[in-house]
């Protein structure tokens, strides 16, 4: 059963991360391709605190979330000044900068060689080392995230965020603070991503920059878009589908010389077909 537990636990962590991306990209319309970088900061902070200090798991997770809140506000600030494609490229830049730091700041992150031996979370004296035990924690984290997302979408604040995406000028003309709304959304997205990062590091016990690079950010976008942007259900189903995809594609029997390329090719074709024929994703609203 450990396989299913670990699959579900990982998918739940990605759901939390997907919520963060959906909030920024889908709801507010801040097109960030650097959420994997924030995710990474959360993972490295928790790993560092657990391995080098006496800070217990939950405070470490809180510290990571708090730092990611601050950092996510900082990296989404350029969206106030630059818009559309310009912000996308800035965001690409932030992602590559983060990868450079994860890879080269060896003292803090273990560098390209990675950080093995991150301790499992210790909660109320229980060490959550087996996937089954960890699953409870991941489920709680995801449930809290989903609840928060759902509540916000129903609240006036959620309507304000959607309105900003539709017409920022009109919102400003009505006397609402666009700045405050964007900053709050970024803060919330940061908290989700940071928490997801902390859970990821303690679940895998090994982290390296490959989990937090540009490809990871793009995978995250694909999860949100394939699942369906702007909806809670879409954010949940996307990660479950895309995390299983490499495992599912491995089932297709192909001659080894072309198998690798053919599987990635199928992934690319799937993305194109989705965008052409079902751009709203499996369970989303029209983008």
């Amino acid at each position: 059963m450990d396989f299913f537990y670990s699959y579900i636990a990982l998918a739940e962590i990605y759901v939390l991360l997907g919520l963060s991306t959906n909030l920024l990209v889908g709801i507010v319309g801040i097109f960030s391709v650097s959420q994997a970088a924030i995710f990474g900061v959360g993972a490295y902070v928790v790993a560092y605190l657990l391995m080098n200090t006496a800070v217990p798991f939950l405070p470490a997770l809180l510290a990571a979330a708090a730092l990611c809140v601050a950092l996510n506000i900082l990296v989404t600030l350029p969206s106030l000044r630059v818009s559309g494609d310009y912000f996308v490229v800035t965001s690409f830049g932030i992602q590559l900068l983060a990868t450079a730091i994860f890879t080269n700041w060896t003292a803090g992150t273990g560098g390209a060689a990675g950080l093995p031996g991150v301790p499992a979370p210790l909660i109320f004296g229980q060490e959550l080392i087996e996937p089954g035990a960890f699953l409870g924690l991941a489920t709680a984290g995801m449930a809290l995230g989903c609840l928060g997302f759902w509540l916000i979408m129903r609240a006036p604040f959620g309507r304000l965020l959607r309105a900003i995406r539709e017409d920022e000028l009109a919102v400003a003309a009505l006397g609402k603070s666009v700045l405050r709304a964007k900053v709050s959304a970024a803060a919330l997205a940061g908290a989700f991503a940071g928490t997801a990062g902390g859970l990821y590091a303690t679940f895998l016990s090994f982290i390296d920059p490959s989990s937090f690079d540009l490809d990871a950010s793009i995978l995250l976008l694909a999860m949100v878009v394939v699942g369906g942007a702007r909806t809670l259900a879409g954010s949940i189903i996307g990660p479950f589908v895309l995390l299983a995809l490499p495992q599912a594609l491995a089932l297709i029997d192909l001659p080894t010389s072309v198998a690798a390329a053919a599987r990635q090719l199928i992934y690319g074709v799937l993305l194109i077909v989705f965008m052409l024929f079902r751009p709203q994703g499996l369970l989303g609203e029209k983008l």
Partner: protein
Amino acid sequence: MLWLHLLVNGLVSGCALGMVAVSFSLIFATTKIFHVAHAGVYSMGGYLTWSALRHGAPEPLALLIGIVACGLLGALIQKLLYERLARSGATHLVVLIASLGASAVLQNIIAGVYTSNVLRFALPWADRTVPIGGVLLSMTQIVTVGIGLATYAGVMWFAHRTGLGKRMRAVASNPFLAEITRLNPRDVHVVVVALGSAIVCLPGALVPLDLGLQPFGGVPMLLTATIAMIAGGVGSISGAFVLAVAIAVLQNLSLLVMPGEWSIGVTFFVFVIFMLFRPRGLFAT
């Protein structure tokens, strides 16, 4: 003398990067599509040229075959993918994801056909070196500079002196106006993407002639070129080319003061700060 070597090396790499930036700038300024699959077209250009050479075509013919094939490939992507997406009213996000998908498809066709191993052109003349002003340059590097400058001049001439170029700039600056004046933006888009794709075959073949062919090599190159285009100001061909050369020179010279692993990080850091203060680029039109 290290600084001189690095400076010259930066200028050479900058010419190759400049061609990518100019080609991407043509496409982006006109269509407003963040055409990530351009990286796939870039790689495809190198591999097709390599194949033509292997089948006995002389170098200029092989390059020409690559250029024409890339142009067709670009037109195909525009017609079959971007035009359909535009018709269904797709947002930027949807177009970007589709383009990422197309990029993955192109790269993996290459990986499937040619394997992911580094392939070399191994042309004897390309490996020869010539001392110029105390710096050794390979023939590949000299050819790259020559073709790079010629490409820049050619694109400038095309955009400002030809009828098609003027139409292209008209569509870029105001698609709605272009529509009612019957400039037919859709056809212009196809032509521009084809042209940009044909141009990107040049660095696509010249860079691997120097460094070897790899299916996944195009993306970092394209991102750096995009930064050059945006920092130079979208729509400015000179801006894209000059900034590409400047970035390549800075990345090389940065080795004088810091270890190489930080040069990419520093480039992007400078860019992010730059965007905060000059979000429209240096030479914005």
